[in-house]
């Protein structure tokens, strides 16, 4: 058995010694050599383990410490002890667990079948034979994007389908119409006629501006001598040029961007809840829509405005709010990144990539490697302490504020840098304490949990402890020149402790004797720093004095590492020159590197300093950051800033987090675009964080999803129904839409038009399909195609919350237009600004927002739900806001100056509905206003009447 290679010799010796002192039983992989048993294993056991157990009990970060990946691992067991005991096969925990007979019931969700539990029992009775013990442990199925995956309708390249021929060639006004009419003719469904001009104008005006037209606008359109189509084209152009357009369509995008003005921190109240610069993103979106920013550019700016060359104008930097305005998740960076991945992937690509955080996507060809490829991009980006201004220079009035803010930022920077230096140094200097803790305690789940600990200054930092455990787990092998002896020494039976836990009692001497024996063997190993050698500094440290306990061993290690670090530090002028500092002393360098390398357990990035601070300092730091924000919220002079990101100094190198657990880093992956979306596998992103590469990949005409997804969203808002029913999910579970050809036609022309949204609106709205009347006047379409999949008529639409409130303000004559700025309190009944400028308080969304189905700002919303409840009616009946508008409507000069109920009624109808009342309606109105008002009512009959008009279905629905 002896070989010439020294490490083999050494290993053999050590093992012999260990066997001699009977420390631990080594169990080698055992194959019975019995073909029947091997076949049984391969046929029944291995597949069962793979299918039902290894998801959680695999090699990487196994649940409860139990790996079911080899015979040794099973015999070693996990937190609850060996899963199978060879001396008591019939009492095996594994058997009990799968039979659900003890406290542990496995698998947790779906019990094994009887046949399966019988398989396990048989296998245990055989003594768990494991053929080919040397072969790699059971591997899970490798992920790959298949050709079939790429053939899913939405993953195929966008095509330019030929425009279909139709029988009724007079009907189509545009290519869109030919696609629609072809399907209608095929199904033999006659489309509805074009709606009347008033209806059309109302539809178009609400659609593009979120407001009703005026009576005069309707009259002008109705009386336009041009054909309806020609006249309507002029209307669409006028509306697209209106500044009200961006306020309406920008808000649609804010749903996708899960925009909110507020933070979601706990115990934050009042102004402290406000993100001082969130509004600059909202204003950016509105302006970008108004200026018809090409959509590909819009995408690039929202992901990488800071990286675009030549530099974008300052206001466009605010686009980065798309990434930074999500929830804070208690400052847990992994959740924040998850939210960024989710918003980018569902919002822009219609892909649910966030599903691949813990495992490969269950339905779509998206792997954890794809997820962590994107994770690396966002983890390599951070918010700068000083956010860039969205104006070119500091406004004069802001000078004094800026001086104070700069001082506060400097204070924060200084405090953080000092804490970073102090905490990093302490972490290194206390290596012995960390190692003793690791050696003498079991892993505590709190070390790797994502939450907040109130740390005292002298407490060990749990994440650092966890990383030391990881490092030792990885390096404590018999080959390792540093931690080789650790492996052996830690197997010695620990001396008993005194009852009061003050220190080792009996047994220390036995420990020391065994340790000495082990070290005798290790002394025969050649000194050096390569595998199979032993670092002489470690040998010296472990030989200096008797080792009476694990703590002694760990402390000796710790002291040796710290000493090497001091030598290196003394010699190094700065932390970049460690290697030369140790001047060829490889042994010292090897140890010092454990503390100075970027993968050192003691190392953490500057940006994460807060997590390592003691409670008092955390509070102080948080307070200072909050104070800076508060200053900006409170001072009207604070200049607008972009909630921007910059690339971190050093890009983050992502690993797959096994089952989503950041303390279980697995395989290293590149920062890159998902494989699915690149024909021949993705190349790693090269440019810094990779944000610009990511943006380019999304905004590419070759990307099959981006254009399809946005044209579908635009279509949905125009027609009330999207072509693809799940606008943020174009994945494999989503069937090809009825109008797949039309979708591709729209996407192709959209890209050809330079990604212009306004051109897309024009294309869609000037089609005959858009101009059709709604259901009731088109019975043929209703009976033949009840769900209107073929688009033979218009869908009646209810006003959104914003359009509802804005329309009430518009018809009452009280609406005030503005051009952005800080959020307003639109729940104040006196407030007159458009709802899009209202404060969106994510943590405490006002009741009226919720009652009217406002998009939850918690996550990217593909479309709003539509509910109907009494809370909506109570708002119309009782809210001071509606009552205020009713009074204002009745008091409008063009109403008040009318004499007699008929004229007054007519005036009100023209303002609210842009039509004249019928005779019956006039009679009803006259009846109502002639009745005496109850004593106690504060509204006049006309005010009460106005409130009723504002509450009608006609007010709330657009035909």
């Amino acid at each position, binding site marked *: 058995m002896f070989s010439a290679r020294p490490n083999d010799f050494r290993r053999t010796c050590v093992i012999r010694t260990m066997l001699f002192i009977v420390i631990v039983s080594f169990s080698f992989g055992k194959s019975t050599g019995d073909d029947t048993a091997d076949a049984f294993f391969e046929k029944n056991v291995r597949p069962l383990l793979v299918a039902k157990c290894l998801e959680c009990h695999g090699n990487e970060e196994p649940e409860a410490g139990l790996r079911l990946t080899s015979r040794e691992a099973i015999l070693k067991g996990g937190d609850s002890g060996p899963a199978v005991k060879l001396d008591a096969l019939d009492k095996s925990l594994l058997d009990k667990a799968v039979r659900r007979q003890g406290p542990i*019931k496995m698998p947790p*969700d779906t019990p094994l079948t009887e046949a399966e539990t019988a398989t396990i029992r048989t296998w245990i009775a055989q003594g768990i034979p494991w053929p080919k013990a040397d072969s790699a442990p059971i591997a899970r199925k490798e992920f790959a994007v298949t050709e079939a995956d790429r053939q899913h309708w939405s993953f195929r390249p966008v095509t330019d389908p030929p425009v279909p021929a139709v029988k009724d060639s007079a009907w189509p006004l545009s290519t869109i119409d030919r696609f629609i009419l072809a399907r209608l003719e095929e199904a033999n469904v006659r489309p509805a006629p074009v709606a009347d001009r008033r209806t059309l104008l109302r539809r178009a005006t609400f659609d593009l501006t979120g407001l009703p037209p005026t009576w005069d606008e309707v009259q002008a359109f109705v009386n336009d001598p041009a054909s309806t189509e020609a006249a309507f084209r002029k209307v669409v152009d006028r509306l697209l040029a209106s500044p009200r357009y961006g306020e309406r369509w920008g808000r649609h995008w804010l749903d996708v961007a899960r925009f909110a003005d507020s933070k979601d921190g706990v115990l934050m109240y009042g102004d402290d809840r406000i993100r001082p610069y969130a509004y600059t993103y909202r204003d950016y979106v509105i302006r970008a829509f108004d200026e018809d920013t090409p959509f590909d550019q819009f995408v690039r700016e929202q992901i990488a405005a800071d990286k675009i060359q030549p530099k974008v104008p300052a206001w466009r930097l605010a686009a980065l709010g798309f990434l930074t305005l999500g929830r804070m998740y208690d400052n847990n960076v992994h959740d924040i990144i998850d939210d960024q991945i989710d918003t980018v992937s569902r919002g822009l690509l219609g892909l649910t990539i966030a*599903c691949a955080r813990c495992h490969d996507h269950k339905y779509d060809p998206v792997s954890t490697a794809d997820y962590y490829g994107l994770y690396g991009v966002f983890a390599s980006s951070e918010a700068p302490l000083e956010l860039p201004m969205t104006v070119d220079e500091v406004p004069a009035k802001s000078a004094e504020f800026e001086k104070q803010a700069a001082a506060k930022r400097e204070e924060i920077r200084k405090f953080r840098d000092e804490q970073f230096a102090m905490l990093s140094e302490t972490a290194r200097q206390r290596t012995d304490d960390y190692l003793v803790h690791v050696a003498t305690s079991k892993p505590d789940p709190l070390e790797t*949990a994502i939450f907040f600990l109130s740390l005292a200054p002298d407490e060990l930092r749990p994440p650092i402890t966890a990383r030391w455990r990881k490092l030792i787990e990885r390096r404590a092998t018999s080959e390792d020149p540093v931690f080789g002896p650790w492996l052996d020494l830690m197997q010695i039976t620990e001396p008993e402790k005194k009852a009061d836990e003050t220190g080792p009692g009996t047994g220390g001497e036995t420990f020391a004797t065994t340790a000495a024996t082990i070290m005798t063997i290790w002394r025969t190993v050649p000194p050096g720093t390569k595998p199979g050698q032993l670092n002489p500094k470690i040998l010296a440290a472990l030989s200096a004095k008797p080792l009476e306990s694990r703590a002694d061993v760990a402390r000796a290690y710790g002291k040796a590492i710290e000493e090497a670090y001091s030598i290196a530090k003394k010699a190094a002028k700065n932390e970049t020159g460690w290697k030369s500092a140790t001047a060829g002393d490889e042994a010292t360098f090897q140890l010092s590197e454990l503390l100075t390398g970027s993968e050192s357990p003691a190392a953490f990035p500057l940006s994460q300093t807060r997590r390592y601070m003691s409670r008092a300092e955390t509070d102080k730091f948080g307070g200072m950051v909050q104070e800076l924000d508060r200053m900006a919220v409170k001072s009207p002079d604070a200049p607008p800033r972009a909630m921007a990101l910059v690339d971190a100094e050093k890009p983050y190198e992502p690993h797959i987090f096994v089952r989503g657990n950041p303390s279980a880093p697995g395989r290293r992956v590149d920062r890159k675009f998902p494989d699915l979306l690149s024909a021949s596998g993705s190349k790693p992103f090269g440019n810094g964080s990779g944000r610009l590469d990511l943006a380019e990949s999304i905004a590419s005409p070759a990307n099959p999803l981006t254009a399809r997804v946005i044209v579908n969203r635009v279509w949905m808002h125009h027609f009330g129904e999207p072509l693809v029913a799940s606008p943020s999910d174009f994945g494999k579970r989503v069937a090809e839409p009825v109008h797949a050809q039309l979708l591709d036609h729209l996407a192709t022309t959209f890209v050809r038009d330079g990604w212009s949204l306004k051109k897309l609106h024009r294309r869609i709205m000037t089609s005959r399909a858009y101009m059709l009347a709604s259901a009731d006047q088109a019975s043929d379409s209703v009976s033949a195609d*009840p769900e209107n999949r073929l688009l033979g008529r218009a869908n009646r639409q209810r006003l959104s919350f914003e359009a509802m409130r804005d329309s009430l303000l518009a018809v009452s004559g009280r609406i005030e237009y503005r051009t952005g700025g800080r959020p307003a309190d639109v729940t104040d009944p006196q407030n007159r600004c458009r709802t899009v400028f209202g404060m969106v308080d994510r943590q405490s969304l006002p009741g009226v927002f919720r009652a009217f189905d*406002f998009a939850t700002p918690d996550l990217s919303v593909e479309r709003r739900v539509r*509910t109907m409840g009494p809370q909506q009616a*109570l708002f119309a009946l009782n809210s001071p806001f509606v009552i205020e508008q009713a009074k204002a409507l009745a008091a409008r000069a063009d109403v008040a100056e009318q004499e007699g109920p008929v004229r007054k009624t007519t005036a009100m109808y023209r303002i609210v509905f842009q039509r004249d009342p019928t005779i019956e309606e006039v009679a009803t109105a006259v009846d109502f206003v002639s009745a005496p008002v109850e004593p106690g009512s504060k509204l006049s009959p006309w005010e009460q009447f106005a409130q009723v008009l504002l509450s009608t279905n*006609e007010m709330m629905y657009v035909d």
Partner: protein
Amino acid sequence: MSTEPIRMPISRRRMLASAGTGLGMLGLHALMADDSGASIASPLAPKSPHFPAKAKRIIHIYLNGGPSQVDTFDPKPMLAKYDGKPLPSDSKFSTERQTGAAMASPFKFAKYGQSGIEVSEIFAKTAQHVDDMCFIRSMHANTPNHEQSMRLMNCGDERLSRPSMGSWVTYGLGSENANLPGFIAMCPGLPVADVSNWRSAFLPGVYQGTHLDTRKTKIDELIENITNPAVTRPDQRRQIDLLQRLNRFHQSARSGEPELEARIQAFELAYRMQMEATDAFDIQREPKHVREAYGDTVHGRQLLMARRLIERGVRIVQVYHGDVQPWDSHNDIAKSHRNLANECDGPIAALLNDLKQRGLFEDTLVICGGEFGRTPAVELVNGKSGGGRDHNHWGFTVWLAGGGVKGGTVVGATDDFGFRAVENPVHVHDLHATIMHLMGFDHTKLTYRNAGRDYRLTDVHGNVVKEVLA
């Protein structure tokens, strides 16, 4: 929700489809449940669960801040033996702050009822009901922080935006009273993690808990827009009559659009709701002896209001003990826990009595507990004992009573010192699964499609604790 193939007029179907798969199904039930002929698309219309269940509604008494199990419902004589001495190292676990020696409970425990379950003297009144209560003494959670554990207990996740249990229950069952919110969360002020405790997240906003700040007493401060500040009720009735007339004119040219009809009905509902809600929240309408039994304190009033609400068909009422985290006794637990229990023991006992007398106990599920428990070891404040205990997620007690619950039982156990759940450990996910089961749901099947997958309260976890079931 289960799907059933039902034909219905088309535009209804379109309306439902517009709300996503989950709500579509939900709305389907809602429509089918309404037999009046008028199709009221109320997402709160009552619906049937997956299987018949005794419990029809929930009162969740939330002792927020983390009540100490070893001072309330989980007696540990060993603590007295070790008082002042360090806990054995295998019985001590890390929590948010540093803790020191074992600290005996300052309170006496006594046996109650036929079952002889031991309860602390500070809950002596509630303890009169032990034979109808089930104590899960082996609860455990994930982390010793309030915010995260509050969200875990309420929403099944510590940090992510997930719908609360109340939202799920209301989504699944609707409400039996269309004139009141289906899910109400009462608190004098706001608990820590505030509205995230009763949020609907990606479920429709109508399922979000309606928060009532019970420091306020006027009805119009409790429910938004419930009273009209400008016209008398007869005038308002005239307004609604006019409104409906105009709506009928409008509707006559737009037949076959149930949403228009639904909105007409919503105004009638709203009109009635004004009266009903005022009545439900007005505890002055209770007889004097009932009010006295609950006590004229904020806790007495809250629980009495809770009973009035569930009696009127509200599906789930959460009653938080107080602003922020009152049960967070880091110092002087002898005094603070006694005071806290003194505030709620009488009202809880009164509520249980009252439910029993009214025949509501059989089909009302009462849940009581906090987000976690407290350490058996004393908390160290600057290295010294302050007589209090730190947060403890390793083991704590939650009790249940009423509909479908096996009374007089103790489920699971903590270790000898009450630190960690060791026997039949019940995670918060398991508690959720059990509550859903008691309400008639397979917790794995009450789902909602969002962002590409079907979500549920228990995510991928949760086992029903059979021992709790009657």
